[in-house]
């Protein structure tokens, strides 16, 4: 099963993502900010990171940028409530591979993951 790291400051959202993903994925970690996300990524090198944007300490776009700079092969999907075009462009620039806007439903999450990490 693909290994997934979840980075989101909202406990509610982490639970929701876990429920959606755990059937077909192995959740190898859940973190609450961008700094922890980078550390956890380097430590465990999961197949996929589900990355929120608005988080305390360090936001998800900066964290994505660092992860992708150190490993261009990393797969990062932004999973955020932000629906601003400029933010989406920033995410592309940082190297994000996909972008899911909250609120989402399971099929759209699975579809986005399938595009990035084909099973």
């Amino acid at each position, binding site marked *: 099963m693909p290994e997934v790291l979840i980075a989101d400051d909202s*406990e509610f959202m982490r639970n929701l993502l876990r429920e959606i993903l755990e059937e077909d994925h192995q959740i190898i970690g859940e973190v609450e900010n961008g700094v922890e996300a980078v550390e956890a990524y380097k430590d465990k090198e999961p197949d996929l990171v589900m990355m929120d944007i*608005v988080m305390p300490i360090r936001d998800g776009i900066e964290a994505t940028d660092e992860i992708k700079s150190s490993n261009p092969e990393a797969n990062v999907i932004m999973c955020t*409530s932000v*629906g*601003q*075009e400029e933010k989406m462009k920033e995410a592309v620039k940082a190297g*994000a*591979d996909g972008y899911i806007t909250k*609120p989402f*439903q399971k099929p759209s999450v699975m579809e986005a993951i399938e595009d990035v990490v084909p099973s």
Partner: protein
Amino acid sequence: MKVDIQSLGTFNQLAHEGAQQATASMAQMTGIDAAVDVTKITLVDRADVGEELDDGEYVGVQFDFEGELSGRTALVLDRPCSETLTDALLPGDSAANMAQSGVKEIGNIMMSGFIDGWADYLETTIDHSPPTYIEGVGRDVIPASKGEAGADGRTDQLFVFKSQIEYIEESVEFYIYMLPDYDSLTSLMTTHADTESDAIPIDKLEVFNQMTERGTQKAAENVSMMTGIDTEAEVSQISFARIEDVPKQIENSRYVGTVVEFTGIPSGFLLVLFDEMSAKNVAEAMMPVEMDGDDLTDQHTAAIEELGNIMTSGFVDGWANVLRTSVDHTPPRLIHDMGQAILDPLAAQVGRHQEHAFIVDSRMRTDDVEFEAEIHALPNEQELREALDALMIERAEETDADPDEIFQ
């Protein structure tokens, strides 16, 4: 057409003093001690004027005024309040028979006090027609403004001056509405504009209001998606009030919700608030399991925190997309406290640099369960002005961005 902040402030002050004068007249006549709670200028859709009135029965007076400023004005009070007033004015059994003329008399004297201040400030006379007694349920009591709907193709929004007056002892309120003719008011505002530097273009303010309406709809759609509760955007309006009146925009009962600070163009604070019952209902609709008990648990508040986050984005994303900029916000702070105490620190932070503030108010509700949510934004004046300057009216519809177009 532009209006500067200073003249908005002056007009707000005039309306406030007028309402105080009106209240003093009333107190003198009846011996009932009342105080003006809030006065604000609101830019609102014609159809939404008076949305703050509940479904109760209201009575009052209206009359037209003409002169350098022309329009229509109304004094509105709920029926129990009118009975208290007329009883104080004419004690005894005759009160019931005299209710209508009592209201008319009080209304007449109060409203004269309200209009006189304007005439004095403008150094002119403002004539008014004899008062007409009005009654109705909820907002229907408020007379239509004199202007034609949608005349000369502009958006159908009005500036309304609202004062809310409250008794100390009894918890009844009444309202003064002033609906100036649009052209009359805007030309007056232009005449009294002191400087160009802090001027706000009115047409753009109207477009901003429409963007806010769409932002509210988006936020309501997000609520529907997350909860399965079909939620509708109700009202969106921009008001202008003294900083110290900002906290009174909401009730002082307890609310649960989230607050973020947003930075960029515009900047400021954004609140998503639910009354406790709504918070509980909406949180439970998001949860997979049934909850026991009446208390708000940590699970409820975690759900509210995320919902607040998503509603916040739904609301501000439209601004960013129309303005082709990004609006960043802090992670949401969960709050559970008295309504006015929630707004007060935010008003104080904005109030360090300005005496008046614009407040964006939106509301959504549903008939399915007891649920109502309010979104309030408190933008910093400087950045709001920059945002309006940068706003291209032809982009007003471009509130949505599609990630699929950007991620290919």
